[in-house]
């Protein structure tokens, strides 16, 4: 087998949870809300999805439960930041800490239990094409759904009327409010969507990538998803590209070692993060890209003045 094929296949699997979490956060931030609690919502999603699948034997119910758990946690965030107008950065950080602790507490008795993995989809004919079959038609259903989600988010943000309202609220909630747009409701829906996506991203870890529950298993992926949103300058296509790029660099370090390339492993471990920083620096070199794309009211509480 071509050595590149397993590397690309592994890249796709590594990138998928990032795509879910980052696309969800893109919508949240487009509405002008900064939710730093992705890591916490992912962990809650991971434990809820695992527990539900363990109890029912159905991966589908697992993902639904994970999304519901993510939404529940995001509602707490929404209530605090949107109704009580607490600081979004501090509340988001608190949400992450809370999610880490709560998931460990809830999952205390689930550790050490294995689950059967999600079967990959086999499309007769297509799966057996050499190279292309291995590259494109060998994944679990969640990989394909992540691309469907991307297409839906892309269409919603750029083409739909509701997406326009969302963006308007992210740019200037007071103006949107003045012309009668439901700022609070829209922001709530966006936050809930972000929670559901983060929950699904977490369940992808505990049901597909490594079918088990262990404390803190997201290992910082929620923070990477946050960075990817900026990295992609709030554009869904670039966010997805960034996720694949990040997944690819993470994979490359392991393959490079396996091939015995004489590069220090510490350097390779640093590479994905260094690449993220370098790209962020390049993006920020041109202030226009950030200024034009960042929702103008990102992270600012909205209080209806009149």
């Amino acid at each position, binding site marked *: *087998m071509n*050595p590149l094929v*397993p*590397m690309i296949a*592994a890249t796709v699997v*590594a990138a998928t949870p990032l795509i879910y979490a980052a696309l969800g956060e893109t919508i949240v931030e487009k509405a002008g809300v900064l939710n730093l609690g992705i890591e916490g919502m992912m962990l809650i999603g991971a434990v809820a999805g695992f527990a539900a699948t363990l109890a029912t034997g159905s991966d589908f119910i697992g993902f639904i439960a994970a999304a519901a758990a993510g939404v529940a946690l995001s509602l707490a965030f929404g209530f605090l930041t949107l109704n009580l107008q607490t600081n979004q950065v501090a509340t988001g950080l608190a949400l992450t800490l809370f999610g880490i602790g709560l998931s*460990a507490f809830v999952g*205390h*008795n689930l*550790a*050490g*239990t*294995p689950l059967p*993995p999600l079967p990959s989809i086999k499309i007769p004919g297509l799966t057996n094409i050499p190279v292309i079959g291995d590259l494109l038609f060998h994944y679990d259903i969640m990989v394909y759904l992540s691309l469907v989600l991307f297409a839906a988010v892309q269409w919603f943000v750029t083409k739909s009327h509701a997406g326009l309202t969302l963006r308007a609220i992210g740019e200037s909630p007071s103006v949107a409010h003045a012309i009668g747009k439901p700022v609070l409701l829209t922001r709530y829906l966006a936050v809930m969507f972000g929670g559901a996506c983060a929950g699904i991203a977490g369940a992808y*870890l505990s049901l597909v*990538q*490594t*079918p*088990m529950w*262990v*404390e803190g*298993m997201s*290992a910082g*992926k929620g923070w990477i998803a946050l960075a990817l949103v900026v990295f992609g300058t709030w554009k869904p296509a670039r966010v997805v590209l960034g996720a694949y790029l990040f997944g690819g660099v*993470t*994979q490359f370090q*392991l*393959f490079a*070692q*396996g*091939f*015995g390339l*004489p590069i*220090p*492993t*510490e350097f390779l*471990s640093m590479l994905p993060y260094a690449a993220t920083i370098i790209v962020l620096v390049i993006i920020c070199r041109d202030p226009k890209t950030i200024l034009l794309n960042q929702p103008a009211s990102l992270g600012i509480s909205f209080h209806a003045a009149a």
Partner: protein
Amino acid sequence: MKLSKKWKSLGLAASFIITSSAAFAAEPLKVAFVYLGPVKDGGWTQMHDEARQKLEKALGSAIKTTFVENVPETADSERVFRQLAADGNKLIFATSFGYMEPLQKVAKVFPNVKFEHVNGFKTAPNISVYEPRFEEGFYLIGTIAGQMTKTNTLGFIGSFPIPSVMRNVDSMTLGALAVNPKVKMKPIWVNTWYDPGKERQAAETLIAQGADNVAQNTDSPASIQAAQEKGTYAFSIDADMASFGPKAQLTGTTEDWSGYYIAETKKVMDGTWTGNRHTRWGLKEGMVVMAPLNSAIPPEAVKVFEQKKAALISGDLKPFAGPISDNTGAEKVPSGKAMTDTDPAFNSVNWYVAGIDGSVPK
């Protein structure tokens, strides 16, 4: 009447003596354990807690144990040690390497409390250290892997390239080469003790590059799951992880700390405990225990495994017996000699034995 009164007072006195001696007996020795992870982590910490329970069972009401879980290797641990010592615990087991510096500080403040530290190297008049001979377990893993491989390629998922982990990849390779001179070892370093996603990716990478027997020196069962799905073999560490891959896990190296914990607690009770000791126990003392062998291993291979195991226990076989040269050709252990844990070089192993692909991360 008089007599009965006398008897009564005698009886009172007697009962007083009985109760007071009972009060002495009821004052059990307090023993505390500090854990890095949760007690149900399915690995390192769980093995320590199982040993704690065996200790309670063995010594009964003579002791009272407590534990604190999820203690990070930071200044937080210092606070935990201080609290436990102040609470009257006379013997405290610190079960993670990173507690070394906090322990040094706290031990100075509580000279009458005895401390035991796992895998460390700094002792004190009231600190002794203990460590399993992991290299024996990995040598035996190599014995199985060398016989079971069809591709003659083995894999190793390393955490950090520190001497105590380097020794494991080296001894596994030596164990495999002893039964199959054609094997090659591919190590991958993930630079973390614990990241299931990354461990899994590392395992899949090794499998994709032809390694059909992959061992790990990281903590999660992710690589066992990967092997189960890909139809290759894997080896557990710390705990038996066969439930995550009943077909994939051939054996593994696990620890049983109870023998040591019981022995040390007894020493404290009879006053013979001393500090400044380094204890290394292996297969012989039962601190290193091999996980059950998979039924997929043919009887001939099991026989070789048992022979090597017996030789390691009797001391006839040393994992690092010369001649050993590193993979650049430099001689590391001369013929006729063996590098053992009393050797200073043992604690600074930073080379790959011949048979390992690649160069040591610098």
